[in-house]
């Protein structure tokens, strides 16, 4: 069962513990520790919050984070993959408009062997809003069997919006498989046209496609009601 | 006199896991041997160990090839001495064309044998004849090694490499797997062309039809749990076809 927390500044999982935590209001700093063989699923909704999240993972631990970021604010995730065989995922979606300013920062450190990380960050920026995605993967010297991947995709929805992406791979070991990608662009014209041929007006078609683009991040969420509700919130954001 | 290839009590591990547990086998020049066995019995390990794949560790036993201690030689020394492995899943090497690759390989072998390296003209002559015989087009030679080829084409290119390098001892690891009937025939045809009294073969396959019709082995060995448990002739193929490996597996559980 999922537990609901508000403004948690600490979240500690003992070895072998499994928890599903939903947060809809964020503290300024949150420290998460996932003990050996423990598993944490963490869903966060941030409406204009500033939050610095630090995560430490034990041996064979897993951490599965999905963040929905609406509005201004600076969110950072610092992950210390400290235990051998641990897995860390951090997916996020951001939707901005008006004069909003948002920054999504990740810093993943593969400090143990056989660690895996995954990041998928998608955003849509309209109005005069500006977004910065600053994502890092660091693999220190001598670490073995590391697998890290990061993807960032953003849609620019207006002429006055701006997205800046700074994906970083810093690798000091050779037994690695690492990739990152970042794409900033616009809605697919063929898809827009296709929807219009079915009688949907352009504005509506844009909304549908933007929502579909962003909602992909929510697909992995294990609480269907939450996924639908947060999907709706993202959709509303696009309507502004 | 000992055999041409003499494997004696060979033990080998992957990591800490023993796979070959005392395998012995003798192969003489000009002979075609088939190795069969259930999955996980060590067939592919044997072929990789014979080639010197660094991922496998030989823990005991001996392998002599034409009177030389094979186990002290590194991968390329064994290749230049005449050992060839047709891989089950040949790896892609982007950006390196098949003809460039073969030129390096052939000249490395010639150099090791004290022969003059081929220049561009004599090299092209050498490969053209063999390419034609195996239906390898110029376009296939220009493409990067194993990149974007169908399963059948990859196997044909393995056979082509064998024809170009003219090895003394060929190991064919699941040559026929994943191929349609016509492709199996082409693969088998390559082996027929290559058969000679100075060249021997070790063929790993499950495909009795392919072995009977294309390979026509002199000897068949059954490998179970890292050891050869039965030696025989082509008649063993029929027994496996009829009864599987059940009889050979008795008392050899992993």
């Amino acid at each position, binding site marked *: 069962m999922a537990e609901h927390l508000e403004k948690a500044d600490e979240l500690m999982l003992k070895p072998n513990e499994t928890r599903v935590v939903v947060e809809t209001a964020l503290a300024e700093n949150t420290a998460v520790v996932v003990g050996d063989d423990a598993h944490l699923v963490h869903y966060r909704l941030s409406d204009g919050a500033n939050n610095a999240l630090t995560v430490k993972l034990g041996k064979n631990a897993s951490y599965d984070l999905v963040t929905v970021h609406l509005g201004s604010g600076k969110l950072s995730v610092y992950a210390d993959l400290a235990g051998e065989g641990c897995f860390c995922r951090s997916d996020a979606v951001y939707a901005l408009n008006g004069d909003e300013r948002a920054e999504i920062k990740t810093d993943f450190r593969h400090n143990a062997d056989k660690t895996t990380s995954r990041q998928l960050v998608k955003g849509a920026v309209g109005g005069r809003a500006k977004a910065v995605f600053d994502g890092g993967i660091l693999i220190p010297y001598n670490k073995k069997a590391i697998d890290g991947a990061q993807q960032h995709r953003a849609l620019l929805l*207006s002429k006055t919006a701006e997205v800046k992406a700074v994906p970083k*791979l810093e690798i000091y070991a050779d037994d*690695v498989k690492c990739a990152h990608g970042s794409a900033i662009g616009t809605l697919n014209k063929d898809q827009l046209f296709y929807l219009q041929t079915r009688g949907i007006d352009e504005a509506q078609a844009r909304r549908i496609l933007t929502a579909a683009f962003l909602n992909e991040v929510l697909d992995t969420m294990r609480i269907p009601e939450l996924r639908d509700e947060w999907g709706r919130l993202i959709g509303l954001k696009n309507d502004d | 006199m000992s055999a041409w290839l003499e494997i004696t009590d060979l033990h080998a591990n992957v990591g800490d896991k023993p796979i070959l547990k005392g395998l012995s086998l003798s192969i003489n020049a000009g002979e075609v041997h088939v190795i069969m066995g259930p999955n996980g019995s060590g067939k592919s390990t044997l072929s990789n160990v014979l080639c010197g794949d660094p991922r496998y560790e030989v823990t005991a036993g001996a392998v002599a090839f034409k009177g030389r201690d094979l186990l002290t030689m590194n991968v390329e020394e064994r290749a230049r001495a005449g050992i060839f492995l047709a891989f089950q899943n*040949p790896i892609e090497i982007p950006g390196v064309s098949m003809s460039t690759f073969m030129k390096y390989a052939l000249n490395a072998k010639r150099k090791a044998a004290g022969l003059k390296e081929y220049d561009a003209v004599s090299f092209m002559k050498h490969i053209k004849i063999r390419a034609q015989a195996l239906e390898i087009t110029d376009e296939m030679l220009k493409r*990067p090694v194993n990149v974007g080829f169908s399963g059948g084409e990859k196997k044909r290119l393995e056979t082509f490499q064998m024809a170009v390098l003219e090895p003394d001892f060929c190991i064919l690891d699941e040559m026929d797997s994943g191929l349609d009937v016509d492709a199996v025939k082409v693969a088998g045809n390559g082996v027929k062309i290559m058969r000679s009294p100075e060249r021997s073969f070790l063929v790993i396959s499950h495909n009795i039809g392919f072995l009977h019709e294309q390979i026509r082995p002199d000897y068949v060995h059954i490998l179970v749990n890292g050891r050869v448990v039965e030696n025989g002739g082509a008649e063993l193929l029929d027994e496996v076809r009829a009864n599987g490996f059940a009889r050979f597996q008795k008392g050899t559980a992993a």
Partner: protein
Amino acid sequence: MAEDKISALDAVSGDAYKYGFVTDIEAETAPKGLNEDIIRFISAKKGEPDWLLDFRLKAYRHWIGLTEPRWAKVDYPPIDYQDIYYYSAPKSAKEPKTLDDVDPELLKTYDKLGVPLHERAMLAGVAVDAVFDSVSVATTFREKLAKQGIIFCSISEAVKAHPDLVREYLGSVVPYTDNFFACLNAAVFSDGTFVYIPKGVRCPMELSTYFRINAKKTGQFERTLIVADDDSYVSYLEGCTAPQRDENQLHAAIVEIIVKDRAEVKYSTVQNWFPGDKDGKGGIYNFVTKRGLCAGYKSKLSWTQVETGSAVTWKYPSCVLKGDYSTGEFYSVAITNNYQQADTGTKMIHLGKNTSSTIISKGISAGRSQNTYRGLVRVAPAADNARNFSQCDSLLIGDKCGAHTLPVMVDGNPTASVEHEATTSKISEEQLFYCRQRGLGAEEAVSLIVNGFCKDVMQKLPMEFAIEATRLVAVTLEGSVG
């Protein structure tokens, strides 16, 4: 001013770097160190007009207030800018009129480097400007090119013969205020190449500059200025080598390129400065600013670089895509071994509409080296339909080296598309095994796989350069597999 005799000082060791020899030649050298007098000395030596001396002094005065950038992922001891000779010229090099006037010792040097200056002996199709320490010693095929109105000469000469052109464009793409090393160069640049391709002319041969640092403790600060007028085309090659010495030497060059309407410039570099020995001793510090302005409609600029040399590299050949429908390309192979450090990449600045850029970068790290791709793609709000695609792949050979990918993308236009993909992995054990099973030696296999990995970039090089580059890959990676 002092005139030192610079003699063969260092014995050449039997290392793989075959260009590590020293030419024993009499040189005229400015006193060590940097101040306004030195700048006046350089300017006077070259008989420069006042405007150029002013340009230098302005730059110098600006430079004094700057601090050396340290944001690159490279690490080297502080440089003592007063312990460098800023000017060294072979005595015999004073304005040779024809090749017959060139010191035979210099001709021999270039022969040894594989850069024959005798036009008769040359393979058809490449004209060479040879820069030895601070001066250009020979430029070939000038008359033939002049018939089509192409200007190909040393920049010192251009200052005298074509002052208006030089004055118009010098510093127009890389202003002296641009960065620390560019500013230093603007103050002390000694020579370099000037190219002007007139309207509608397709340059009939490859133009090339061959840079050679010979003198000890001498910095090389050359400046290349290429102007391609409307509807013109030129392919330009740059090569470089230096003797093998125990101390580090500074190379801080500037390349400025102006590409006008529908013109195209292809700039290729095979960079083979001495990288230092296997223990990281010696080698060139290569701190270079290269930038081109695609000024007009459908201008096209393509950078191709193969970086194998230098102890430390800091270099980002860039394109400012100002003209509508202009195109920028950056194709790069950077290979580092032993203790080399390379921080290199590109900037693509999209200002015009329908501009497009492509970045393909292949980094190979071996030994204890560090190899960084650093890039910037910026799409300005006015750059409708701008397109960028970047692919950066890194290959690691051995577990003591590093590979870093640090791109920055800024998109401010909703009709634009910016895409970046990067991968990092170690050289495949399976590929190595496959090659070795076919009889290739371990080093041969590595070099073959690496060349395959770099193929997309290598094939952008002109033929003669591609062969040289392929060979250099093998040489650079020697000793990388144990």
